């Protein structure tokens, strides 16, 4: 464990050097993601200029859901972004073989290979959204609540990671599963809004099959009393853990049956 922590630090230091080398690009990356998020929030704001609530949810409550999703996703974006590239950067060109003969966990190696600059923009905007929404929500904030919010956000991030890892693993059989990963990732768009606005089938799917509901809506619902999802919301960390275990076992399975592309 200590060895891996130290290794990660070494990897990260190199990544940081690269980032500082291209400073303008770092700023472009951060700004671009911030603007992207800002556009979606502005969209919600414009809608709320004309109405007071959606399905019983006020502007700041929706902002709160959004903020949890954005912050959770930033964990995934900063630290685990390289999972996207498994197919075209590692398996197709035969790079994965290089990692397999090294004395460290190949998944760790792939993840540590990249620290994504643009994720920081996401993190900043996520925190800004949370900072804007929370004071307007009329909630009592104690140490317990803050700790719980942090746990919820980390769980949210880990669910994003687990789902991406699970579908990226298909690359072992189909060489590059990026289209699948991308299509599944788009499902997380549903999670921006209260799940109660959707048809029951969609809600069940996003709760029990691909649990994006736990990346934002349920955690937010825990803090907003009236929602009636408090008990389910408390399961968020457990859901995240189960997802990670399933995804990692699947990854190991894929790795065992992996026959290189050969070159």
């Amino acid at each position, binding site marked *: 464990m200590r060895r891996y922590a130290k290794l990660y630090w070494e990897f990260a230091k190199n990544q940081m050097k690269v980032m500082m080398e291209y400073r303008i690009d770092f700023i472009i990356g951060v700004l*671009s993601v911030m603007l992207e998020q800002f556009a979606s929030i502005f969209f919600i704001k414009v809608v709320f200029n004309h109405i007071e609530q959606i399905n019983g949810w006020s502007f700041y409550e929706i902002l709160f859901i959004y903020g949890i999703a954005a912050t959770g996703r930033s964990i995934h974006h900063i630290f685990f972004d390289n999972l996207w590239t498994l197919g075209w950067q590692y398996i197709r060109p035969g790079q994965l073989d290089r990692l397999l003969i090294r004395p460290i966990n190949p998944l760790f190696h792939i993840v540590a290979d990249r620290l994504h600059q643009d994720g920081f923009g996401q993190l900043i905007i996520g925190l800004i959204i949370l900072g804007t929404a929370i004071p307007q929500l009329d909630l009592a904030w104690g140490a317990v609540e803050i700790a719980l919010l942090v746990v919820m956000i980390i769980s949210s991030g880990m669910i994003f990671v687990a789902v991406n890892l699970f579908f990226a693993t298909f690359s072992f059989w189909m060489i590059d599963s990026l289209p699948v990963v991308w299509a599944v990732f788009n499902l997380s768009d549903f999670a921006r809004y209260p799940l109660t606005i959707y048809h029951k089938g969609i809600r069940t799917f996003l709760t029990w099959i691909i649990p994006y509901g736990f990346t934002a809506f349920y955690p937010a619902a825990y803090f907003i009393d009236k929602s009636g999802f408090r008990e389910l919301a408390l399961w968020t960390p457990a859901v995240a853990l189960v997802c990670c275990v399933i995804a990692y076992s699947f990854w190991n399975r894929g790795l065992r049956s992996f026959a290189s592309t050969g070159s």
Partner: protein
Amino acid sequence: MNKYWQIAKVRMQEDTAYSAWYWAGTVSSILRLLVIYYFWQAVYSNRSAIQDIDLETMITYIVVAMLLQGFVGGVGQDLAENIKNGNVAIELMRPYDLIYKMFAVDLGSKLMHLIRGTIPMMLVAFFFMDIPFPGSVEAWLLFIISAGLGLWIGTFFDFLVGVLAFWTVNIWGVRVLKESLVTFFSGALIPISLFPDWLRVITEFLPFQAMVYLPVSIYSGMISGTEAYLAVGLQLFWLISFYVLVRVIWAQAVKQITIFGG
């Protein structure tokens, strides 16, 4: 002319070769339609109109805007990669005008997208979401002209963004930046008439609304009559300005290649 058409055809064949991406794109579009549908149902759950726009018109606007936005991109990505890996130098020596070649490639992929992506999705929207077609033949014709102009403006703009690759390394970042700007100001997310006043005024002076907002407003009947013809005129103005800009900036950029001995 014939050589450019051949290039477009090759691109169409290339696009059909990657069916995984096609299916992923189709699934994602259907998911987005679902999100749009439920979101706006919820917004309209206890009111019949927002600023004179009823639910049907709103969903029509949003869905058509979403489909149209799929065409607003262009060749910027290809161009940027060509610049980055130096291929642009070889491309420039080939016996065609690189700009026309790029637009031919773009035309090929857009035609394919129209046939395989947009038309099926339009039918899905028509049958399952009751999205109506434009009210009159005149509106249909104006929409087709206006949409064509809008896409062209979008393609030119994308080209200009692609040329930026001469000056920056983070191509991905620039693209996301461009996508957000376009999504935001083109009215792809929400009709611009709902923007707060100050922002609406700014937006009306920007070229982005000509890409999506104007054609879709004509489609959904939010703009009609003289106003619609004025909108098309405004699009023409932007199209010509962008063409001039593309030529000028490209001439500058090509000079830069020779300086670095590419």
